[in-house]
Each structure stands twice: as structure tokens, then as C-alpha cells.
């Protein structure tokens, strides 16, 4: 029978099926961090059981870490305790631990791929919804709750009903200043924040085939923002070239065996999806969000739509615009910007900093803007320095912080104050996401750069024209 990419990877990992219930799914690689793991370890202790395969789990601290002075003790006692718990639990159960200050420390969805933990055709879970990122490699990767973290530690399996399958096809040459982030925000704006709930998505078409691994990770990362458990892209030469030779990638004979498996990982020509959508890549603009969920996005040159033209209730829509201080019919161009955040598991990779730097080169940060530039890992941080980007950024009035999740969820001190506006390359614009009362506009690194140097929301295409 013809199978989709998703079917092939899923079916390879089903230990057993339960009548009228979920499948028992084997998990190849498990990533943990300090926030969603302590209660899972506590559960193991309460039950008196151990970790079944410690070498399949990897721990890094990221959600709750400072992005300056990482060499000093963490000031907040609750945060320090969580970091300590991750370290002591990892040590007790024999799990690799990349804590604060460790060379491999960084955002879990940035370091996983960098070190080859992420592999095509693998099943990967983490107590974090943006685990969907790893689908960029043709893996089935999704976020889980803490009960499931405990399950994976104890048994390397979770119990999941098989989701429905959706394919999103996009072909065509992307326009000027249109990045993978814009492609993702465009898709979410079309599907709404719940349009893919119950589905696992495959992204297909030349728009994705032409993307780098970094770009594919940005797209798959945002799958959860339209409700999909995950998204995936069939592995190709780009994928295999990225994976080969990384520290935890298979080596020697194991690599040959893995490669044979990777080459089977594509959707059969006559395989059927539960839902199939097609968009024209040439029509996508640089995007920005205007509301309080990632589905409330539009091309940056558009005006905020009327309630009557969007799905959902008028009261919820009015509450959202009220929170943002925006009105139906407003243009986003020229809107106030107080903070700019570049980073996160969505846009904290080297290509994102290259894009940001390309636009701020030879210009200067606007005085009214506080900018937080936070690399996703030490590898990204080192690349920024080696490629000379840091010199350009410094010249333009920007500083680079140290790796971590930072202002994406504002668990640490990187909080946008109440009422202030942030243009953010992260993944969620929920009320208070970047700090109580903060107001977030999600966008690409190029839109973030345009905002950072002009001090207001600006279409990056106008600046690129100026440069040319």
C-alpha cells in the first residue's frame, strides 16, 4: 500500500497497536530541559523505577537561563534550583547534561540538530511544543507533556493515537525579503491558529526544497502554531549533507545502514492525505502579526482586517486588538516599536543573524529601540563572530547576548515591560508572552532589522531598494 513520509516513519516505530486506543510508539531520541522535566524525574523516584535507555535522552538548560553573565551564579533562587535539578537528575540517571556554561549548551531545538541528535526518519520528543522543529529532517518530532516525559524516561515509548495527515504544497519563486519565517506566518494566517489541529503536516514543493536546513527548521518549528502536532519535510541531499559527520550521527557501517533508510523516506506518488492544500509562493509578502495569536498575521503592507472578514467571534477579536492597542483598518507600517528580539528556536540560527546583519550594515540602531540579539547556541554565537557579523552589529549599535530561550517566553529577566511593543522573531504573540502586559508583533529577522534601525514598523523591501 502507498504510504506518506509520515506513515513510513510512524509505522516503523509502532511497538504495538491497542484496540480502540492509541499506538505504542517507540521514541529514538528524547530531549529534556529544566522546566518540564523535574516532575517527571520525581515521578520515577515515587514509582521506584529507572531510566530505560539513558543514552537516548539528552539534557540542556535553556528556558530559564540568563543571557548575560552566564559565568556567574544564577541570581533567581527558583531558576537556580531548576537548573540544579536538571543537573542532579541527569547525573543520577546517566543522561548527557549540557548545563549553563557547557560548550554544547543552547536552545534544545538548536543544539539537537547541530550535534546530530536529530536524524531523518527518527522519532523525537521533548517537553516543548516547538519540538516540531526537528521535522525539518524528515523526523516525526513533537512536543509532549511532563507525564509523557516520565513515560519516555521509564519506557522509551509514548502512547499516541495516529494523527491525520495533511500536505501543504507551495511552489514558485519567493519575492524580495521573503524568508522562511514569512512562508510559515503566511501558512498560519491562511489556516488560523487551530486549522491543522489533529493533523501531522508534510510541507512539499520547490519553496521548501530550495530552503536551507535552517529555513526548513523555521518552517517546521511553527507547525504547532496552526495546531498541528508537527510538520515534516522529506530528507534530500541538503538534509544528508547537514547530518553527515555530526557528533551523534551514525558512523561507518551504521551510517551506511542509516543512509539506506533515509533514502526510503519520501511520500509515495499515489499516497493519499486526509487534507491537501496548495498555495502560490510568489504571492507571499514579508509578514507581520497584529493580534494575540500567530494566526493573526498578514502581509506587512496590508491593513488590519475587519472582524467580519476573519474567522472566529467578534468579541474575541475585539479583545485581541484592544490588548494590542490596534484598530480595524490600521496600517502596521509606522507602528511604535520599543523592543526588537532576534533569537529563539524559531529564528536563532546563523542564517537569521546573517539576514538581520545584512540589513543593519552601515546603519544605526534607532535610539528608541532596545534590541536583544540572542544566538540559539554557542556554535551560532561563534559563527557570528567568525563571519565578522559581530563587528558589523557592534558598529551599528547592537550587542550580542548569550544563548538561551530568552525573551521568547520571558522566564528569565529578558522581559518586555507592560504596554511596550516588541517586534520579535520568536513564535508566539500571546498576551503577556514576552512579559506581563507586553505586546508582540511576530516577524522575520529582516522585518526585525528594519524596525530596529527605523524605530517603527517598516517594510524591509523599502530599505533594500534604498541600498540598491
Amino acid at each position, binding site marked *: 500500500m502507498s504510504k506518506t513520509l509520515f506513515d513510513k516513519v510512524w509505522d516503523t516505530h509502532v511497538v504495538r497497536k491497542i484496540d480502540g486506543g492509541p499506538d505504542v510508539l517507540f521514541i529514538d531520541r528524547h530531549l529534556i530541559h529544566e*522546566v518540564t522535566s523535574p516532575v517527571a524525574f520525581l515521578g520515577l523516584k515515587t514509582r521506584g523505577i529507572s531510566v530505560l535507555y539513558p543514552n537516548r535522552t539528552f539534557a540542556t538548560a535553556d528556558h530559564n537561563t540568563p543571557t548575560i553573565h552566564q559565568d556567574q551564579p544564577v541570581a533567581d533562587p527558583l531558576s537556580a534550583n531548576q537548573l540544579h535539578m536538571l543537573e542532579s537528575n541527569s547525573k543520577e540517571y546517566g543522561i548527557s547534561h549540557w548545563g549553563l556554561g557547557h560548550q554544547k549548551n543552547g536552545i534544545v531545538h538548536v543544539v539537537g540538530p547541530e550535534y546530530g541528535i536529530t536524524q531523518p526518519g*527518527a522519532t523525537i520528543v521533548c517537553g516543548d511544543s516547538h519540538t516540531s522543529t526537528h521535522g525539518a529532517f524528515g523526523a516525526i518530532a513533537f512536543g509532549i507533556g511532563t507525564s509523557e516525559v516520565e513515560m519516555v524516561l*521509564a519506557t522509551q515509548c509514548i502512547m499516541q493515537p495516529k494523527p491525520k495527515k495533511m500536505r501543504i504544497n507551495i511552489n514558485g519563486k519567493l519575492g524580495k525579503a521573503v524568508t522562511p519565517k514569512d512562508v510559515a506566518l503566511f501558512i498560519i494566517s491562511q489556516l488560523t491558529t487551530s486549522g491543522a489541529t489533529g493533523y501531522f503536516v508534510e510541507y512539499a514543493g520547490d519553496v521548501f526544497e530550495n530552503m536551507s536546513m535552517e529555513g526548513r527548521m523555521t518552517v517546521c518549528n511553527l507547525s504547532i502554531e496552526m495546531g498541528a502536532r508537527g510538520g515534516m519535510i522529506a530528507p534530500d541531499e541538503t538534509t544528508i549533507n547537514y547530518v553527515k559527520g555530526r557528533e551523534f550521527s551514525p558512523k561507518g557501517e551504521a551510517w551506511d545502514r542509516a543512509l539506506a533508510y533515509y533514502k526510503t523516506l519520501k511520500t509515495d506518488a499515489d499516497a493519499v492525505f486526509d487534507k491537501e492544500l496548495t498555495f502560490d509562493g510568489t504571492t507571499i509578502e514579508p509578514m507581520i502579526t497584529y493580534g494575540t495569536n500567530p494566526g493573526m498575521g498578514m502581509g506587512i503592507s496590508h491593513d488590519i482586517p475587519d472582524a467580519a472578514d476573519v474567522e472566529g467571534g467578534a*468579541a474575541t477579536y475585539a479583545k485581541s486588538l484592544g490588548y494590542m492597542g490596534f484598530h480595524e483598518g490600521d496600517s502596521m507600517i509606522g507602528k511604535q516599536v520599543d523592543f526588537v528580539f532576534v533569537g529563539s528556536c524559531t529564528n536563532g540560527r546563523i542564517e537569521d543573524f546573517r539576514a538581520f546583519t545584512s540589513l543593519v550594515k552601515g546603519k544605526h540602531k534607532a535610539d528608541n529601540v532596545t534590541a536583544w540579539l540572542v544566538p540559539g547556541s554557542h556554535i551560532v554565537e561563534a559563527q557570528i563572530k567568525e563571519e565578522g557579523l559581530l563587528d558589523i552589529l557592534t558598529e551599528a549599535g547592537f550587542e550580542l547576548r548569550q544563548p538561551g530561550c530568552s525573551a521568547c517566553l520571558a522566564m528569565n529577566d529578558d522581559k518586555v515591560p507592560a504596554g511596550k511593543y516588541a517586534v520579535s522573531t520568536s513564535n*508566539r504573540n500571546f498576551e503577556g508572552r514576552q512579559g506581563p502586559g507586553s505586546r508582540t508583533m511576530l516577524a522575520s529577522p529582516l522585518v526585525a532589522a528594519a524596525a530596529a534601525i527605523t524605530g517603527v514598523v517598516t517594510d524591509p523591501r523599502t530599505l533594500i531598494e534604498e541600498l540598491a
Partner: protein
Amino acid sequence: MDYKLKNMAYDKFNILTSTAVPLPIENVDTDQLIPARFLKATERVGFGDNLFRDWRYNPDNTPKKDFVLNDPTYTGKILVGGKNFGSGSSREHAAWSVYDYGFRCVVSSFFADIFRGNCLNIGVLPVQVSPEFSEKIFAAIFADPKTEIEVNLPNQTITLLATGEKETFEINSYKKNNMLNGFDDIDYLQSIKGEIEEFAAQLPI
């Protein structure tokens, strides 16, 4: 079921009859249920105090009078939310905060996947109803805050007791059995550990 109960993971759920708290807002996300700054605990205690923290309290920690959890008119063990309830993060803390506050059932016309799964794993029953029945429930609560709702897990029905109007809801038979008996998945998976180890040995990567 062919596995033995080792741990009482959570309360058993059978028939719940209660008044309900209405929250007719769509896309209630997990950052509203429990903001990230309250995720620093290393034990599962006290999350109910911060359920809907920023909708419930002003920055000076005084209660916001117009928020439903601060309105003594509405009480009960059932929370009725708008469409797409629980979207966003995988933080199980969101479900813990719902449970710790005292809710045992969340009703919505549509749930986000991870939140729904997290609820099932800790013994909070997510009941998905049709948009029409959701409207009826909200109307019934607003007309009479003392109106009682029966959530019957064995029969998979939700009933407005005042009028007898009811609807059936879906839950897979495995999870239903777990909730009725207070079993959890780890009990089951532990019982097939040998099979898991054999399976792992033949994987391609």
C-alpha cells in the same frame, strides 16, 4: 486490560454532577492558563493559585473584579471554555493548574491536541461538544448560574439537567478505562517492557 495497577496516578472519574464556570473566549492559550514565569517549581504543587494569573489579578495582585473566577456567582468543578481551548505550549502545568484549582472537567467545542492529551494523562476529562451544544451550555449557565451539568463518562454523555438536553462525546476506550480506574500509561508500558526492548533491537537507526 492485561496490566496491573501499580500506582494510583490520579482520581478515578465516573459521573460528575456540578455547576460550571463559563469562559466564552476563543483560543484560550496555555500562556493565559499559566504564564511562563510560574513554571519554575520542581514539584506539582500550588499551580491553581496562578491559573489565569494575568486575567485574574492586577499587577499589584489585587483581583480583577470582572474576571469570572473572581465572580462568586459562578462556581463548580466544570470549566466551560470557547473554541480552541488550550492552544500553544506543551506545558502540562496548564492542566495541573486547572486540576489544582478544583476543576475535574473542561468543556469546549474544540481542544488543542497537546492540552487535551495532558488533561487525559492527569485525570481532567476534556469533553468536546458541538458548537451548538456549547452555545446551549453557555446560555444555560448565564440564565441560571446554579444550573447543574452531568458529565457521565461510562455513557459518554454530557447533560443539562434542568432541561435534559444531552450530547454524547468521544473518548477512546483505552483512555476511558484509564480514567474510570485511575490507571496511567506508565503502568501499561511497564507491563510490556520486554516487548519494547525486543522492538528497540531491530530499529533501522
